[in-house]
């Protein structure tokens, strides 16, 4: 059985849920016990056998734990929302190319994340904030639809102290004294005297990524300095099922993190 488990890449392994935290009404973060070698930006195929399987980004990890931050939108994610500490979650991975962390070392890093797009960049931001990944500066623009949809509130407070954080919601709401407007408006305010050692990351829903990357290009940021993470329907994570193919690229194995100079030319 165990020999099979290692040989057959479709077989998940069992992990125990050690913590559950509600982020918003429909989003929550699970911590599971597992020892894996992970790069920020990678994902797992997470499943409840009998219900289904889906790709979920690693939203943080340690030496013997992994976090997933999940939005309950359907069959599987809805069922996972009902799980409690002590119950099992089945996973296989990690999959995909993560962020090229070494290239970010000593860079002036700009991260723009929209909504649940904050999840895949969270391990990276944490590495910067806790000093594991030294950078010259970190500008972080995190955009959410509204106040109720803000996730990682505790982290955001911490990040604020160690980075230049802009936390923005789409429209003004009563009692909100932070920034408002789409992330693009805040990108526009960034000033770059030089593009030397600049690195930009953009992660979020497809429309947000389209406009955010365009905004950076308008600011003359070279495409090679921009990194994006793609989401596509995925059934395998192994370059077999064909769902995630765009042109000759398989997002599950060649991505999800892609350099924009390459990603910009991919047409679905």
């Amino acid at each position, binding site marked *: 059985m165990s020999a099979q488990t290692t040989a057959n890449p*479709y077989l998940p392994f069992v992990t125990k849920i050690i913590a559950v935290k509600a982020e918003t009404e429909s989003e929550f973060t699970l911590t599971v016990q597992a020892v894996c070698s992970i790069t920020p930006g990678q994902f797992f195929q997470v499943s409840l056998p009998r219900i289904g399987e889906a790709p979920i980004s690693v939203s943080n990890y340690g030496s013997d734990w992994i976090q997933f931050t999940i939005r309950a939108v359907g069959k599987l994610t809805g069922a996972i929302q009902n799980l409690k500490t002590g119950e099992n979650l089945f996973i296989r991975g990690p999959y995909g190319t993560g962020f090229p962390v070494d290239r970010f070392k000593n860079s002036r890093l700009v991260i723009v994340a929209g909504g649940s797009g904050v999840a895949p960049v969270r391990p990276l931001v944490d590495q910067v904030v806790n000093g594991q990944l030294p950078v010259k500066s970190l500008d972080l623009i995190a955009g959410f639809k509204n106040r109720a949809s803000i996730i990682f509130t505790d982290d955001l407070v911490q990040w604020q102290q160690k980075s230049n954080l802009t936390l923005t919601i789409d429209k003004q709401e009563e009692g909100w004294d932070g920034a408002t407007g789409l992330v693009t408006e805040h990108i526009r305010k960034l000033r770059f005297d030089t593009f030397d050692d600049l690195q930009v990351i953009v992660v979020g829903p497809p429309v947000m990524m389209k406009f955010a990357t365009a905004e950076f290009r308008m600011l003359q940021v070279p495409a090679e300095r921009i990194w994006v993470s793609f989401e596509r329907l995925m*059934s395998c994570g192994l370059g077999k099922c064909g769902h995630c193919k765009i042109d000759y690229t398989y997002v599950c194995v060649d991505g999800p993190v892609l350099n924009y100079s390459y990603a910009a030319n991919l047409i679905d």
Partner: protein
Amino acid sequence: MNKSFKLSSEQFKTVFAGLSEHYCIVGPKRFAGLGRFSDTDLIRYAPLTSIDELELAEKSCFSPKDLVFPPDETLFYFNGQQFSEAALPDNLEIIVLLRPCDINGIDRLDRMFMKNADVIDPYYQRRRSRLHFFMIECRESFENCFCVSMNANRSDNYAAALRFGKDGVEAEVASDKFLETFAVNGSVFEFKPEFVSENQIKVELPKVETMPPEIFTDKLWEEYDSRCISCGRCNTSCVTCSCFTTRDLFYGDSRTCGERRRVWDGCHLDGFCDMAGGHTFRKNKGERMRFKTFHKIYDYRKRFGVDMCVGCGRCDDVCPEYISFSNCINKLSARLKEGAE
């Protein structure tokens, strides 16, 4: 060194009977009255109990890809805590009688399932490793075939190649495994298989390194918006289509037990790229036609060095809307040329 033999029909029957003791022999077979239209026959790959069942006069509607990639396959069972990989239903070694285009088609599947991303798909591999190709010599093409244009009319990837004649069989045997039975029953003879060298249908492949972005939204795709009904038959009949989705099942009488299966999916079908949040790609049928076309004759080559489509023409044979893929390829090439002018 390959050795060739001549066998009378009776002698070949003896070979077939001998091989049947150790192998399941599969080939195109005619099922009377089961065709798409009333009074037509269905021809598909099936186990043969005698060589007389081998259908040579007409093309099979479906390809032999089920043998390596069945339409619905259990991956593993789950008992609440543990997984057990689903075993193959039998341990039979399989001899498959097929034409050069289909041998090349299975090669295209091999690249996807055995090479892509350096991951070997164990479910594919275990079926693939028990297949032995007996190539049916194919010197004249059927309707809609364009294997020559696709460079898929020839193959030397076979255990044996067979020419079926009126009064017997000529065979070239490439694998030692099968040498004895041919040598004992037949007589030594000079035979090398020939290949079809011209099809009625010809396609001109686009000669571009990179598709210009305009062609993705070109008006050439628009006709398919209204013509294609996204039934997915072109995908299911294609020997090289390899996409699948996984589905979980649970057993009615158990809260904890179930299984995960994989089932064929196709890029023409609705829902192929639906994502959470209601976002989708390629809503229009024309965009799906473009996606399939580029995969078959353009981007697969960029990844694997050879075109995916083998020109078997089955997609044209089965399309209820009479959409012709070979036509589409030619239209695309023509548009690209116009654009370049």
